[in-house]
């Protein structure tokens, strides 16, 4: 009788009932296991099981879409941690950031969050550039390009709302410069062309306290109201919307025939 090979510790673990209850397919060694490993995992099944060879070439994809999503996850996690320390009020916001950098040992969450956000903006632009240069917006993927443009816009708006939160000079003046443009919105801003037409008799409907800038800032200038609004938009509102569009974006990549490639 042939002697049984002793099992390695790793194989033993992977064959234990606990492991098998979590990862049903075991360690993916055989072709079937590798396919089932993708199919049975909720995260990995964003992917198809098999791909044409060009689709895994870095020279083709630059991995920029994947990195944009990864950066989004990094920003979500570091952002949640930052929320433990940060209170969005004029009284506390700045000192909380000071505390964060001075009291938290080895704290680099703010750095990760800030530099990661810049990196995400660049990654999203480069992803868009790649998709254009490979003509991947062409039918049948035209709608997914539209969703992608919205995602890029949401990325910029997420970054913009986060810009205010440290409540330092850079923050409020950058947001002041940015949001001042909103008061010139045609019809909807109090210094925009056509706004004076929206009036009942001689009562203007679009004033400094009712225009689109007021709605964005929750006030006539960048103050308490703006800080709270930007905080809520940054931490809840925009991530909620962007996640919906991301789900559509990923779903449509698969449904529109997978990653683009030469016919």
């Amino acid at each position, binding site marked *: 009788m042939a002697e049984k090979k002793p099992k390695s510790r790793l194989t033993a673990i992977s064959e234990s009932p606990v492991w098998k209850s979590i990862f049903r397919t075991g360690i993916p060694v055989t072709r079937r296991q590798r396919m089932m*490993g993708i199919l049975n995992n909720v995260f990995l099944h964003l992917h198809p099981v098999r791909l044409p060879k060009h689709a895994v070439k870095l*020279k083709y994809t630059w991995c920029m879409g*994947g990195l944009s999503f990864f950066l989004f996850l990094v920003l979500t996690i570091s952002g949640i941690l930052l929320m433990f320390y940060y209170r969005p009020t004029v009284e506390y916001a700045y000192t909380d950031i000071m505390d964060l950098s001075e009291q938290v040992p080895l704290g680099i969450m703010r*750095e990760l969050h800030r530099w990661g956000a810049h*990196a995400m903006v660049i990654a999203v632009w480069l992803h868009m550039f790649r998709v254009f240069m490979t*003509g991947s917006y062409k*039918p049948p993927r035209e709608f997914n390009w539209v969703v992608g443009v919205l995602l890029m816009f949401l990325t910029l708006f997420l970054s913009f709302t986060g810009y205010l939160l440290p409540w330092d000079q850079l923050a409020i003046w950058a947001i002041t410069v940015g949001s001042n443009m909103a008061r010139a919105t045609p019809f909807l801003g109090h*210094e925009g062309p056509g706004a004076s037409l929206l009036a009942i008799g001689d009562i203007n409907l679009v004033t400094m306290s009712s225009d689109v800038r007021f709605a964005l800032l929750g006030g006539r200038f960048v103050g308490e109201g703006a800080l709270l609004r930007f905080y809520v938009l940054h931490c809840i509102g925009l991530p909620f919307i962007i996640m919906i569009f991301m789900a559509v974006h990923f779903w449509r990549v698969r449904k529109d025939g997978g990653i683009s490639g030469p016919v």
Partner: protein
Amino acid sequence: MLDWLKSVVDFISTPSISLTLILLMFPFVFPPTAWFETWHRRLGLHNLWTNRGGLVMFSVITLIFVWGFTDVNFSKILGKPDNVPIMILIYSVFFFLWLAMKSAYENDAHIAAGEPVQEYYPPEDKVLVWPDLVYIELIALILMMVFLLVWSIGLPAPLEEPANPSLSPNPAKAPWYFLGLQEMLVYFDPWLAGVVFPSLIIVGLMAIPYLDSDRKGSGYYSFAGRRTAVFVFLFGWLVLWVFLIVVGTFFRGPNWNFFGPFEEWSVTKVVPLININLSEYVWVKLLRVGLPANPLVRESVGIIMLVLYFGLTPVMLARGKLRPLLDKLGSIRYSLIIFLALAMVLLPIKMYLRWTLNLHYIISIPEAFFNI
């Protein structure tokens, strides 16, 4: 010698000079028509998208940055923690532009020779996502994480003085990715630069797949088959977006005045404000009758010019060179493309009118906040 060289760079960086140089070079670097293509080859510009060309571009950019860090004034701008992303942007834009164009030219050669493009594999030649893709993804995200960690440990996030609504910094800059829009504010009022143009950018980007009816060139890098589309996109992205961001970040100092990279940001730099409206040119300087009281009469010249610009140009082009485009796309898609293109070109046109004629507004009706 070095000082002289610095003043040359300062001079070239002036938006009027640098934009002119870029506009002159652009169609030769990214030839939109066969005629430009001939000159592109004759000038040897296709060598930009080879390994040697890439190395030259990389060296030139690095040399400028290294030189900049040795200069008192330039290093102040380059050394700002929040400007690090711009340097990463410049490097990555050039690198990926080079990579995309290199791949495109390789594929163009394949297509010309009747061979399949480099992205082509026989349909049955597939790989499993586990392990061929998930491992690449894992390595990519680990490298990105390492990069972010090094950046975060090496460079603390800046924090300025606490917010003070009564003390505005000079210059007050928007976040770097909006500096292209803030740069537009020099030439257009906020309702255009901050609202209408950004909306047109978003709408125009979204419209690309519906306006570009050419089904060729999907799923692989290519240039020759879709040179006009690529030219327009690259012009919008590289010149009107990335270039303006670089100008806004590096070259705009106190009072939003222009400063060359080696120039000191002095608050006292005086730039004369001598901008004149088109209506004044016509009624006061040319006709010498004074401005009419009725704003519509006063601005009639500007209004007519803009109506002709947006209304007549598409018709003229359709009768001339762009007739095939109209026939191919139909009148609605044709008009939309031309409208978006004309709106895009309006920015450089207004820039040149400002630089040459000191033109303030083409149409100026401040009573209704309607200035163009």
